C-alpha cells in the first residue's frame, strides 16, 4: 500500500492547483443544487466520457493506471493477489470507485471506504477510458437516466424490494457481516448510484438491465433524490434509523427533560 500512496501524492502535487478547486466545486454543487444541477453536472461528465474514446485519453489513462493502480491490480489490469482483475469491469466501475474516492485504497479493511477524491474529473475519465478499452463492460450511464425526473413511487417500490434490506428504506445505510456495511445514500450523485447498481462494487450484487431496467434505475434515483430533497414532514428525522434512534431520543432527551422538570417542581422555591 505505501507504494500506491507515493505516486498518488505525486499526482495531487502535480495537479495541486486544480484538484482542491475541483473538489470544492463538487461539494458546492452537491450541497446547493438539486435535480437540475445534478443533471447539468452529469451531462458534462457523460459527454467527457464519450469524447474520451480518443487514443490520447486512453494513453493518458494507461499512464495514470501504471502509476497508481498497477501495484494491486497488475500492470495489465489482470489482477494480483492484492486486487481483482479489472478486465471487463467497464468505465462505470472505474468512475464509481475512483470518483467516490474508494480507489485507490489506502489500507486494507473490511471494505473500501469513501475518501476525498484523489483524481480530477479528467484523470478519472482517462482511467475509465483506459479500463474500458481493455474489454467491453458497463459504460458510464447517459445523462437522461440521471435526471431524477422519473416515477418516484415505482422507484420506491423497487428500492424497497431490491435495495432497502441493506441500505435501509430511507437510504440511511445498514450493517453487513464481519464489519462490512452498506453505506448511506444521502448525497451520493445519481451517476454514482447508477454505476453502483450496474457494476456491483465490492459485496453489492450486480443489478443488470434485465433485473432492473434503465428506466427502473432512473425511478430508483428519482425516489432517492425525492427523499433527499424533501426533509421529513414530521420534523428532524433522527438519522432515519428507525425505532432505535427514536427510543434513545425519548430516553435521553424526552425523559431527561421531564426528570429535570420534576426536580424543578419539587425544589424549594427561591
Amino acid at each position, binding site marked *: 500500500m505505501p507504494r500506491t500512496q507515493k505516486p498518488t501524492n505525486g499526482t495531487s502535487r502535480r495537479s495541486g492547483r486544480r484538484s482542491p478547486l475541483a473538489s470544492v466545486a463538487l461539494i458546492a454543487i452537491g450541497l446547493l443544487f438539486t435535480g437540475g444541477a445534478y443533471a447539468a453536472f452529469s451531462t458534462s461528465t457523460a459527454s467527457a466520457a464519450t469524447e474520451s474514446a480518443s487514443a490520447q485519453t486512453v494513453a493518458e489513462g494507461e499512464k495514470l493506471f501504471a502509476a497508481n493502480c498497477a501495484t494491486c491490480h497488475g500492470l495489465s489490469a489482470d489482477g494480483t493477489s492484492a486486487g481483482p482483475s479489472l478486465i471487463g469491469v467497464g468505465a462505470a466501475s472505474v468512475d464509481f470507485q475512483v470518483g467516490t474516492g474508494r480507489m485507490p485504497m489506502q489500507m486494507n479493511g473490511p471494505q473500501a471506504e469513501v475518501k476525498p477524491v484523489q483524481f480530477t474529473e479528467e484523470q478519472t475519465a482517462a482511467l475509465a477510458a483506459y479500463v474500458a478499452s481493455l474489454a467491453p463492460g458497463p459504460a458510464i450511464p447517459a445523462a437522461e437516466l440521471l435526471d431524477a425526473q422519473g416515477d418516484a413511487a415505482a422507484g420506491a417500490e423497487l428500492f424497497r424490494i431490491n435495495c432497502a434490506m441493506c441500505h435501509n428504506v430511507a437510504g440511511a445505510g445498514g450493517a*453487513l*457481516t464481519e464489519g462490512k456495511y452498506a453505506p448511506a445514500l444521502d448525497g451520493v450523485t445519481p451517476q454514482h448510484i447508477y454505476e453502483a447498481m450496474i457494476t456491483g462494487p465490492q459485496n453489492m450484487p*450486480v443489478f443488470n438491465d434485465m*433485473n432492473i431496467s434503465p428506466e427502473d434505475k432512473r425511478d430508483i434515483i428519482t425516489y432517492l433524490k425525492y427523499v433527499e430533497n424533501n426533509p421529513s414532514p*414530521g420534523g428532524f428525522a433522527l438519522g432515519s434509523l428507525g425505532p432505535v434512534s427514536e427510543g434513545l431520543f425519548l430516553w435521553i432527551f424526552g425523559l431527561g427533560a421531564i426528570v429535570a422538570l420534576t426536580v424543578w417542581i419539587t425544589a424549594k422555591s427561591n
Partner: protein
Amino acid sequence: MASDETSGKDLTATDSAGVDHGSAAAGIAVVSRDAVANPGFPPHRPRITDLDPRAEKRAERTVYTLFYLSIVGSIFAIAAYMIFPIVPEDPGSVRLNNMFIGIGLALALLALGIGAVHWGKALMHDEEGVDERHPVRGTDETRARAVEIFQEANTESGFGRRTMIRNSLIGALVVFPLPAVVLFRGLAPQDQDPVALLKQTMWEKGTRLALDPSGVPIKASDVTLGSSFAVIPEGLMDLGHGLLEEKAKAVVILVRMKPEDLIETPERASWSYDGIVAYSKICTHVGCPVGLYEQQTHHLLCPCHQSQFDVADSAKVIFGPAKRALPQLPIAVDADGYLIAQSDFLEPVGPSFWERQ
C-alpha cells in the same frame, strides 16, 4: 410525635424515634438501645416570596404572564392551522403545518403548566403538613364483625351446609366459560388445515421464475455473475385473493456465482443451473425476508436477527440464531431459455413449527 396509640403491633417501627420496642414488635430488626433520637422537624425556612413583598409581586406577575402566554400559544396554534395549510403533494407544507401547530400547542401547554407550578411553589402556603398513619388492616372490632357477617351469611344461605348446592354451583361456574373457547375456533377458517398449507407453496413443476414486483419471467442468460434477483412465481401478481399469503411463502432469492465456487451435494447437483441457485427468502428462524446478499463472500444476512447463510454451501447457517439452512428451490431452464422450477420446495419454508417433520 408518632406514638403507639394506633397499637398495630406490625406498625411499630424500629426507626421511629425514642420508642423502646419489645422484641416481638421489632420483627427481625436489631433494636439498638443507644439509637439516635429523631430530632423532630427542622425549623421552617421561609422563601424569598415570604420575606420580600417585591419578590412576591414579581412571582405573581410571572404567573399571570405565563397564563397569558398560554392563551397566546393557543391562538397561535389556531392561526397556524389556517396560515400553514397542507398543499397536496408538498411534504414541506405538511412539515410546516406540523411544526407550527405544534409550537403553538406546546407553548400553550408549557406556559400553563409552568405557571401553575410556579404559583404553587412561590406563592401558595409553604408550610408542610403532617398526616398520621394508621395500620392498613382493619381494627380488631371491624375484622371480628366481618367474620361474623360471613358466618351469618353462611348460616342464612346454608352455603357450607348444603354441599350439593355449593359444589354444583362451583361446577357450573367452572364450565360456563368453556363455550367461549369453542367460539374462538371461528377465528380461523373451519375447512383449512394449517399444517398442510404451511407445507406447500405456489411453486410447481414448470412455474417460471419472475421478477418481483413486475412479474416478468427471467431468462437464465439475464442472471449475470454477481447478480441477485428478487423472485416470485410467474402468475403470483394475477392472484386477486390470497396474494400476500402466497407471496409470504413463495419469495425466492436468485443469485449467480462461478460454478466452481458452488459446493453442491450429489443429490442437489441438478438443482442449480450453471452457477445459478434459488433459495427461499424466508428466514428459517422467525420468518424475516433474508435479502442481504454479499456477492463476494456469498453470504446472505437476515437484518432482523443477524442469521447468516452461506449460499455457496447449500445456504447453511454460519452465524446467528437460525438452525436450518434456507430451503432450496430446484430450478432448470425451459426450451425458451427461461428459468423454471423443477418442483415445489422439498421441505416447508420459513420458521419451524411443531408438525414440520
